[in-house]
């Protein structure tokens, strides 16, 4: 009588000590092969014969599974007898037996909570250190520029002035105008309740020049130009263009970073002033149409109630915002790792960080100078 255990992919003949492989031993059937192998009562102590005569196909991963399974059972690979295999299959098994040890089972990384948390903490630390180093380098480059003003890259500066400033004008005007309209409308509903329609001018003038226009403009520029700086510098770095600039004996800080920073510093206050005007025009329109405050009354009262200091205070925040946006954007661009994924991550980080910083700084200004009306 025969003592035979058979599954779909293999068959164990205990009398002859023979393991017959059958059917498709391929990647597509790997899970089934694994289960079938585990179902067989293979002995460890006896010499085994492996019979491949019933195989349809054998590929490397299936051969590897067989060898791993036998190894896991503690079978001596030297004591195996292979029969019924074609020349190609023997070669395949030899190759797999040779190479499989080199890299055994690779643990695929876990993305656990602890790991992620740790990674982010270290990343924050690394980022802070590299940002400080970057600020230092920019300061050094700026010092050099002050000593030798001819080093200024006028062409690049002009290009950046156009990209950051001129081309942003329609967007800045439209958005600030819209904010002015909405704010005057909502405020108008409140002041109307007290029949104090003309007070809308006081509120609108203060809110727009002191808070809304600087903030909205800075957020728009952070999203627009900050992202552009990071993506552009990052792609240049991936493409080794920044290295090429350095090798040509030029300073990437003079050629790339300073023109962008200076352009932003010059342009953001101007855009903010434009935003002030657009916002107030939007508010004046609503005041006339909704509250019956004529433009003449509106502007006369505005002149009376809005001190110049308030408008200047709002404008004075713009260079600070510009500096923060420019530094974050250029730093993230200059320090991306050299692959496609990093450029995307760095651009996202620029937009998020610079907007967060802009709002934090704005809050600090509000707390520090409450007396300016």
């Amino acid at each position, binding site marked *: 009588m025969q003592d*035979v255990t*058979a599954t*779909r992919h293999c*068959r164990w003949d205990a009398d002859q000590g023979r393991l017959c492989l*059958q*059917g*498709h031993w*391929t*990647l*597509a059937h*790997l*899970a089934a092969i*694994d289960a079938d192998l585990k179902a067989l009562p293979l002995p460890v102590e006896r010499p085994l014969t492996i019979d491949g005569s*019933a195989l*349809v*196909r054998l*590929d*490397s*991963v299936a051969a*590897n*599974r067989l060898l*791993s399974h036998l190894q896991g059972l503690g079978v001596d690979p030297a004591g195996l007898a292979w029969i019924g295999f074609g020349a*190609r299959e023997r*070669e*395949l098994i*030899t*190759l*797999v037996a040779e*190479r*499989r*040890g*080199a*890299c*055994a*089972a*690779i*643990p*695929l*990384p876990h993305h656990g909570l602890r790991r992620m948390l740790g990674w982010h903490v270290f990343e924050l630390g690394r980022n802070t250190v590299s940002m400080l180093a970057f600020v230092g380098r920019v300061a050094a480059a700026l010092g050099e520029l002050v000593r030798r003003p001819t080093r200024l890259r006028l062409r690049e500066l002009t290009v950046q002035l156009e990209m950051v400033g001129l081309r942003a004008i329609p967007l800045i005007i439209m958005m600030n105008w819209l904010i002015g309209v909405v704010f005057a409308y909502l405020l108008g509903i409140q002041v109307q309740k007290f029949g104090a329609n003309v007070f809308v001018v006081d509120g609108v003038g203060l809110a727009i020049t002191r808070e809304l226009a600087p903030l909205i403009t800075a957020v728009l520029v952070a999203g627009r130009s900050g992202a552009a700086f990071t993506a552009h510098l990052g792609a240049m770095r991936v493409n080794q263009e920044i290295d090429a600039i350095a090798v040509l004996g030029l300073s990437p800080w003079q050629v790339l970073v300073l023109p962008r920073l200076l352009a932003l510093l010059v342009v953001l206050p101007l855009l903010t002033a434009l935003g002030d005007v657009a916002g107030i025009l939007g508010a004046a329109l609503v005041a006339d149409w909704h509250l019956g405050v004529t433009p003449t009354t509106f502007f006369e009262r505005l002149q009376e109630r809005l001190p110049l200091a308030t408008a200047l205070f709002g404008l004075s925040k713009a260079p600070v915002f510009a500096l923060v946006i420019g530094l974050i954007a250029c730093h993230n661009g200059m320090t991306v*790792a*050299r*692959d*496609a*994924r*990093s450029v995307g991550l760095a651009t996202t980080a620029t937009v998020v960080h610079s907007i967060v910083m802009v709002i934090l700084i704005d809050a600090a200004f509000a707390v520090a100078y409450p007396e300016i009306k």
Partner: protein
Amino acid sequence: MNTGPQPRVGCPPDDQATAAVVEVVEVRTRLAGRWIHDGVSFTIPRGQVVALIGGSGTGKTVLLRQLVGLDRPTAGTVRLFGVDLAAATPVQLNALRQRFGLLFQDGALFSNLTVAENVAAPIIERHRLPKPLLCEVVGLKLGLVGLSAEAAGKRPSELSGGMRKRAGLARALALEPELLFLDEPTAGLDPIGAREFDRMLRTLADSLGLTVLVVTHDLDTLYELPDRVIVLYEGRVIADGSVQEVARQPHEWLRSYFSTRK
């Protein structure tokens, strides 16, 4: 109880085992107002390792892109495993793509994944495997191309050019292809690394029974790797045979090409 051999379903029948794996018939390609290919024809039987050479701009890479179905020729037919790529349905194309692998020139590894994840990616897409088995498969593939466990956890940007190519090859081999396309596998490698890569390819091709088409510029590769060399020149095949036969051809371009090797 099923004890006998199973019927050979989904497997190339025996009569196809010797038939052509790659067939290129009278391919003509017009790009930017110029005929890149002007009637290119050749066939590659199963198990053969073939090198495709030609000067820059002779459309080797374009032909390779047509062979893997990324581009289409202007006229002519490209068949893989007997299936006409232009007439194939998306389902057929998808099935075909499991049967061949492509090693891109720079590896084209996914930069957001580690090397191990890169190799695992095509397997996860096609097969449901428990994690221990998946890890074992990935480990084998990396072992086959000679990468260490240390390299497996790294991202492509942290690897050297040679290791990136090996990782790309491991990914190309992930789905156990029968046919392998290689675009300039030794470009950018040092001569020692390049010869090692050639020998590894030869071993893999022989042991795994692969059919291989390699596009190359590397003269040393020609003497090391392929069974047969096909030469493209001005849109046509001007020579086809073993490297010794091709080197003996009197054609001017071939003479200057082979004379670069002392």
